[in-house]
């Protein structure tokens, strides 16, 4: 049934070189139902599911919670964990050849799927096959034949990337939005970072600078002699039109339609100029930046017009580079204290809102501010612009209110104590990291479209995206996350950006799918590559259907507990944004219990009989740690921190997210090579060095004995060189982690009894506490002073509930 069309090599080369064959129009007809109906069996049989999962992730950046799907709606809902996937649109695929022509689309208006390996092609007929013309091949496909297939039909290219040739090259636009209300030291460090960043930008990239404090200054670049800037009051919000007039940008705004071909925008203006042209000028300008000169009386916060500044930045880009990739990089040293978007008054005696205030509905600025930033985020995302926030302050800066800016636009959110820390400096530097081709590892103004075969529909997405409100046949009525659409806008993408997509099986129970049938899903990501090219990446994936009543075992075996944990976690976090914490936890618990009930192996009312298959074994543990994680627990975290953690959690890929939920703990000792150990208090031993990676922190903990040795200076002695090596090993490993991670984690070096050890102690499973320390073995571990339940207790309880017939 699978027809393969192969484009001759020669043909491909011709196409790559841009030559267009003048062959007659060739039309390929495929049954409408077929375009996303894959062959019955996987092309490559996998030995095991883990391998299959890994391979799929490697190739497509997709991980499903279930890799075999229950074939009816009813059964699907009984699976507890929905059919869902984690999708990393820009997963790095250096091996992927860029295809220099445009994708062939299904011509049925309701489908528009891209030609893919799952398509059944009647290439012999090329013209009219069955009933409806689905794909109308462009002339270049004239030579299509069984032995001459285009790449997109090759199975190994289930993910393929097209380079759109039409339209102009888009410049990259970087607009620095710099707070000047900060200590000189911080400002100096920031200035240096910014100046450094200029050298990292491609020469043709456009840069702009807006500074703010009490006022907002839009700097005109490239002027001789006197440096000019336009100043705006920080207390006033301006719409794009007003701004345009005030800045003297009277040229008509570029076309408002979205799509890959915006009208010819002005390539530069007074405020956004190519780096190569104003490099020196801007460097000087940054060098002359002064702290906001307005006096701050004692007991007051400086007046910081962040909201207005951001509004101006968004407005500036809106009227100059709509639908062009642009980053607004916001650097703030404190909360907005005036104007639209203010999150706290300027009286120091009134502290910024806490969770407590939020619960009491006592944060008077929050709603208004949130609304302000939300509208900005929406405006920015509508135009494909990214808003990054680099917040460096000891106190909160209002990330809670501003979170939607990065969250909606795919921007970065970085939180640090000061701009003068390596945490910020290196993180910022890493923003500009490049891939092998020398392009930034970032993509702009992307849209993700999901197409499904008709048994399954998409319910929604959770991740750094906004809905494009595109209705279609594959949109489920049931919304999960950002739903009601099959297209999302992701203004900022990087290779690790991952969306959680939730699906709904809509096939009715009484309409069985033929044995061996497959459900297919196609992800079409259109984006602006860092090189300025418009690109389209198409990932087409399919999974087998299975009848849950008869093939529950195979479905259970296809469970991807890691992906499922993350998908559930994203759901939980998503709910936590709008619901009370305890409700979310309760929901999470219930889901867990139901899952246990569904897939556990037990005798009713006998907790001890409970067994979980291997594919589920880790899941409860993930849930345990998730419940304790800062994503759901706000205790001990400020609202800003929670927002920050959630932001990171919502955008990173599975591996990173798992680390966030359940930190990784390595032990170093003389007893053997470094080994991962249980995240448990029992792992804390005096003769060990522990390296914990929580994603946000990299912590090295020296056990009591090791700490004493170190204090005694044995590592200095040649005869104890091995000790030195032991000390060095975790440090080296930590460095490695630090170098690959974005954003940079906080690096902590501590020891037994050190104050910073609390980070470790708060993460490990409190199997030993002051309550039970004497009931367990004396020889290992360190008691944790907490009333939290331990994993053991949690599990016991879980088993009890799972087997309970009353549930």
């Amino acid at each position, binding site marked *: 049934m699978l027809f393969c069309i192969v484009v001759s090599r020669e043909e491909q080369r011709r196409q790559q070189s841009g030559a267009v064959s003048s062959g007659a129009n060739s039309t390929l007809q495929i049954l409408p139902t077929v375009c996303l109906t894959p062959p019955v069996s996987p092309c490559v049989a996998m030995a095991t599911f883990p391998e299959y999962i890994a391979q799929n992730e490697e190739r497509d950046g997709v991980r499903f919670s279930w890799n075999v799907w229950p074939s009816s709606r009813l059964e699907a809902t009984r699976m507890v964990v929905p059919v869902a996937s984690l999708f990393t649109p820009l997963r790095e695929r250096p091996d992927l050849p860029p295809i220099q022509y445009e994708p062939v689309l299904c011509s049925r208006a309701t489908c528009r799927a891209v030609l893919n390996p799952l398509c059944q092609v009647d290439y012999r007929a090329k013209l009219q096959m069955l009933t409806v013309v689905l794909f109308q091949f462009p002339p270049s496909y004239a030579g299509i034949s069984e032995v001459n297939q285009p790449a997109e039909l090759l199975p190994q290219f289930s993910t393929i990337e097209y380079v759109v040739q039409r339209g102009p090259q888009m410049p990259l636009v970087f607009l620095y939005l710099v707070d000047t209300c900060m200590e000189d030291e911080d400002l100096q460090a920031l200035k240096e970072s910014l100046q450094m960043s200029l050298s990292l930008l491609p020469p043709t990239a456009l840069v702009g600078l807006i500074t703010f404090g009490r*006022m907002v*200054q839009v700097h*005109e670049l490239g002027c001789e*002699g*006197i*440096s*000019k*800037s*336009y*100043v*705006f*009051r920080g207390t*006033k919000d*301006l719409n794009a039109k*007003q701004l345009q*007039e*005030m*800045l*003297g940008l009277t040229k008509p705004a570029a076309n408002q339609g979205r799509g890959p071909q915006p009208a010819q925008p002005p390539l530069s203006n007074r405020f956004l100029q190519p780096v190569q042209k104003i490099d020196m000028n801007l460097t000087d300008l940054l060098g*002359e930046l*002064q702290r906001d*000169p*307005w*006096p701050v009386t004692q007991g007051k916060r400086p007046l910081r017009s962040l909201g207005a500044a951001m509004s101006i930045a968004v407005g500036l880009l809106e009227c100059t580079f709509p639908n062009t990739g642009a980053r607004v990089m916001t650097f703030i040293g404190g909360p907005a204290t005036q104007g639209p978007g203010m999150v706290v008054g300027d009286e120091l005696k009134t502290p910024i809102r806490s969770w407590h205030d939020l619960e009491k509905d006592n944060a008077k600025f929050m709603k208004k501010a949130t609304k302000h930033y939300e509208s900005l985020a929406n405006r920015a995302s509508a135009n494909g612009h990214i808003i990054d926030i680099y917040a460096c302050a000891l106190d909160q800066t209002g990330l809670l209110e501003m979170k939607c800016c990065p969250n909606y636009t795919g921007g970065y959110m970085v939180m640090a104590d000061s701009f003068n820390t390596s945490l910020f400096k290196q993180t910022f530097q890493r923003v500009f990291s490049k891939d092998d081709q020398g392009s930034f590892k970032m993509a702009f103004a992307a849209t993700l479209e999901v197409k499904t075969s008709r048994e399954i529909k998409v319910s929604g997405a959770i991740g750094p995206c906004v809905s494009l409100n595109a209705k279609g046949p594959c949109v489920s009525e049931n919304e999960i996350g950002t739903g009601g659409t099959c297209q999302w806008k992701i203004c900022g993408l990087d290779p690790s950006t991952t969306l959680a997509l939730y699906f709904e099986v809509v096939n009715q129970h009484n309409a069985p799918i033929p044995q061996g049938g497959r459900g297919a899903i196609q992800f079409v990501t259109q984006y602006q590559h860092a090189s300025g090219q418009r690109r389209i990446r198409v990932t087409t994936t399919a999974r087998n259907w299975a009848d849950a009543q008869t093939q529950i075992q195979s479905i259970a075996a296809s469970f991807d507990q890691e992906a499922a944990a993350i998908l559930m976690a994203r759901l939980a976090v998503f709910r936590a944004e709008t619901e009370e914490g305890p409700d979310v936890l309760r929901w999470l618990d219930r889901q867990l219990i139901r899952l246990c009930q569904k897939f556990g192996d037990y005798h009713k009312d006998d907790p001890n009989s409970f067994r979980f298959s291997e594919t589920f074994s880790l899941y409860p543990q993930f849930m345990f740690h998730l419940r304790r994680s800062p994503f759901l627990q706000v205790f001990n975290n400020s609202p800003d921190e929670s927002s920050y953690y959630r932001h990171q959690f919502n955008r990173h890929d599975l591996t990173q997210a798992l680390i966030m939920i359940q930190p990784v703990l390595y032990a170093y000792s003389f007893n053997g090579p470094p080994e991962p150990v249980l995240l448990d208090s029992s792992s804390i031993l005096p003769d060990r060095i522990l390296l914990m990676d929580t994603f946000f922190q990299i912590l090295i903990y020296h056990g009591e004995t090791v700490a004493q040795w170190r204090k005694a200076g044995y590592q200095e002695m040649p005869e104890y060189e091995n000790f030195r090596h032991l000390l060095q090993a975790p440090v080296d490993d930590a460095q490695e982690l630090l170098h690959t991670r974005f954003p940079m984690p906080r690096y902590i070096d501590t020891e037994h009894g050190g104050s910073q050890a609390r980070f470790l102690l708060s993460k490990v499973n409190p199997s030993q506490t002051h309550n039970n320390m004497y009931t367990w073995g004396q020889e290992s571990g360190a008691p944790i002073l907490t009333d939290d339940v331990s994993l053991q207790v949690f599990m016991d309880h879980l088993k009890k509930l799972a087997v309970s017939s009353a549930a």
Partner: protein
Amino acid sequence: MNVNQHTPMASPYGQPQPGYGQPGYAPLDGGYPAPYAPYNGPSSAYQPGAPPQGYSPFTNFPSKAVVANPVSDLSSPLDLGPARGPPTSGTPPVSAPQPYNQYSQGDMQNGPPPLTQAPPRPAASQLYNQGAVNLSGPQPSYPQNYGPQPSMQQVTSQMTGMQITSGAPTPTGPGYAPPRSSQHPASTAYSAAPPPSYTQAPPPASPAQTQPPPPSGPAASQQYYGGPPPPSQQPFNSSLPPTSQRQFPSPGLPPSSSQQTFPPSSYSGPVSPPSQAPAHPVSQPQQPFPPTQPPFSSAPPPVSQPAFAPGPPPPTQGSFPPRAPPPSSQPGSFPPPGPPPTSMPSGQYPGPMPPQQQPPPSQPHPYQSGPPPIRTQMPPTSMAQSNHLPPGSQGPPGPPGPMQQPPSQPGMQGGYPPQQNGAFGQGRGPQPGYAGPYPGQPNYGAPAPAPAPGPAAQKRLDPDAIPSPIQVIEDDRAKCTEPFTTGVRGQVPPLVTTNFQAKDQGNASPRFVRCTAYNVPCTADMAKQSQVPLAAVIKPLATLPPDETPPYLVDHGEAGPVRCNRCKAYMCPYMQFIEGGRRFQCGFCSCVTEVPPHYFQHLDHTGKRVDCYDRPELSLGSYEFVATVDYCKNNKIPQPPAFIFLIDVSYNAVKSGMVNIVCQELKTLLDYLPRENPEMDSVVRVGFVTYNKVLHFYNVKASLAQPQMLVVSDVSDMFVPLLDGFLVNVNESRLVIESLLDQIPEMFADTRETETVFGPVIQAGLEALKAADCSGKLFVFHTSLPIAEAPGKLKNREDKKLVGTDKEKSLFQPQVGFYNTLAKECVAQGCCVDLFLFPNQYVDVATLGVVPVSTGGSIYKYTYFQAQSDTERFLNDLRRDVQKLVGFDAVMRVRTSTGIRATDFFGSFFMSNTTDVELAGLDCDKAITVEFKHDDKLSEETGALMQCAVLYTSCSGQRRLRVHNMAVNCCSQLADLYRNCETDTIINFFSKYAFRGLLNNPTKAVRDTLINQCAQILACYRKNCASPSSAGQLILPECMKLLPVYLNCVLKSDVLMPGADVSLDDRAYLRQLISGMDVTESHIFFYPRLLPLTKLESGSLPLAVRDSEERLSKGGVYLLETGLHLFLWVGASVQQELLLNIFGTQSFSQIDPSLTSLPVLDNPFSQRLRDIIESFRAQRSRYMKLMVVKQEDKAELIFRHFLVEDKSASGGASYVDFLCHMHKEIRQLLS
């Protein structure tokens, strides 16, 4: 009353007068007497003052005074007399008379008079001669006038009638027409009047007061004085003449009385001449005033007295004869000097006085001229009283004058002065003077001549016969020889046109405060009846000449200035220490306050504090306190002020070159920011803004390599984009500032932006000052109507159709309310706005000016600015504006003693309540006019006190209180009031009052109000103070004889009577300009100075001529100065030598009319002329651009506009016509 007053005043004169007066009076009663009386009155009055002490004769004075009263006009002087009297008289009891004389002489004449006078005269005479030349011209005309007179008479039947009846009486009729002495008497009256004024000061007040009763006598005398009779006299004469009187004059004495007077006058004429003559001498030397003074000294009139005496005794005639004799004798001496000129002056006070002392010599001259004098004398008599303006008579007089006194003509010019003398001249001066006078003003002269020449002819008033400003000015100059000391309450200071030195002895110098009246009516009824406005023009930060000490700075320590507990008046000389110095009683509210321990001091046996003379606040009229922190805004010591330059950089501004010029100039100008200590750098900080539709602020912080420009385009809600680096110290940021100023013109060289904003510009400056928490000044350089979308946006509403309608007032009102609010905010912050306008079309000055005017700022307007021709003017204005001393964030409060109250304020300021005048900025050129009203009775003993306290921040940032104290007398007789007025100040008040009235009333109503009030003032005088005389006679108080001419100038100003070519902007501009003018400026503004340049001598200016085309000679070159403009008029047949000297060209046609400065030629004439121009410019607060006007050139139209005595193109009445009209009004009121 007058008498009394007079007497005191007169005391000096008195002596002489007495004799005359009494005798004269008696006779005068009819008509002549009066005139005489005046003379006598005044003189006698003076003497009386003295007399009382010793002179028995004086006793007579009273009676004389009485007699005089009729003449009365001059009474005002008496008041003064009294005031002075006390001191002088007090001391010199018996001898007093002599003393007085001496004193008076001393003061007036003594030192200076004789010597100087003598010499001057010659000069004067020469000048006069010139004038004379002119006069000669006129003379011919006179005859004609005469011819006309008849017509006049007919025409102004009233006038004539007036004259005839009343006028005929003495004053006008006689004097003028027929040079009859009788009128002269009037003139004498004038002269008398002058004396009074002079004497006033000296004259023991008491005497004056006492005498008052005999009012008639004194009044007359006063009138004389005041009347500066000469002019009025002339008028009278003229007026008289109109009727038969005029003729009479010639005939001699048509109307019995009048005629008689005439004859007498003629008699007196002779007599007077001498006196006048002397005066002249005096006057010439000193110029106008001196003469008058001389009178005083002369008053000693011993000489004159004799003359008078004789005069008096015999009624007018009698007196005359006697006088005549003296005159004759004098004449003998006088003749040489140039009687004519002198005579004129002498005619008035000087005349008499001088004669005696120096006089002899000088007098002779006058006398010589005297011959004609006789006539003059005539005038003096009635004249004095009436000042009257014998409308008709004047005309005639003129001619006669010339006729009779050809010689005098020269004198005529000089003659002007005579007029003053005229009064005295009673006898002599007049005569000689008359001749002169006629030409000049001179009633006297005029009268006499008139009669002679053509009794027949003139219908018109002779311009020479009506009161001449030039004459008055010259007389006052001549009179003023001694420093003016302020120690005596109620003295009238010298005129603003007079150079004098002021010595602060307890009252504020006239440079700081000038009052409309120095004798305030005791009751509200009187004030209402007289309609004389009670007002003071205060110029709190006036610049003093180098020879006067600026106010001392007093520091009372931490507790701050010592003040009355109740009314909060500051410690001043009026505080009476009691209980051994432990308490003091407030002179304003009588509240008793404890003296703070640190301020305690023992009293001496007279009840004065021992340290009285060590402490400025106890002995001076003006001083400053260091204000403590309690006097500062928000209780914070103020920051040094800042200057912000806001420059329009729209297309027009750049194209006209303005931007470039300003930027270039600022580079150097910034080194001359105001500072108190010339050694130190100024602490004033500066900031820069440019703007068109948006605003550009500049960061010029010293640490920057390049200035930074901050553009604020959100003009709807203005704010200041930066703090640090906007306002900087010039020295620290010099390089950056220079770089900025270099770049601004370049940056905007190619601008195409034509729209501008204005409201936000001021807001920007205001916000900047707010942000810096300091006060300061904005210099806004603006070109066009702000039509860009922004607060304060305006639309073009220039609609000429509204002019003349009831809606006209709306054109003076601001278009939008925005600027009023803004002004209020500016004032609250101490933000003063100076606006430099460079419009090419309508910019709505009425609206744009709201903020500058409300904040104590100035507006400068350069219509059709062209870099080439206007740069100099603009730059000089800018330089001066930037450099001048200025105070910020000022609050002025005027406290008064119980009984009167400051009720209204005029000027550039803002008031949020009814008492505090708030000035964001107050510079040394700004004056505030304050009107007072009664709220209770005043007492003559305590007088009326006024304390003006101005709290301000100096340019060094110090908070200070400047206090000016002023005490004036109170009078229960109207005559005193009229004798102690200052017309220039009244005009200042009237103009401000009227111009403000334009905002709410139709222009015509405003004009009518002015005319009415003026008529009422004069009618009241006529009714209550002047001697009974025919209703047809116009009688003016000596002190106010110029009121009609000046008022006419106000009425004819562009503001009140615009010509077709006067734009609304110009009117609004002038209207606002006037509001801040002091008396000096308003005087020159309304009555420009016109100098003939035929001959220039170093050291003295040529004698000015009256602002009339008739005075221009085709062969001459004239310089006309208005305070805003400077014209060099070149006659069509000018001498080649002059052209060579001035322009370096051979012919008239080669003169380039576009010249704005004269070529620098190496000849004394050119040198001197340029010096004169420079000195004129230096005197004015605004640079006057020189315009060369060739006769019969187009530009002459503009020039003619400033010949304010002529009919104006826009329909303004000529002086003569207006005088007739005024006379009519008065008559209506009287009937």
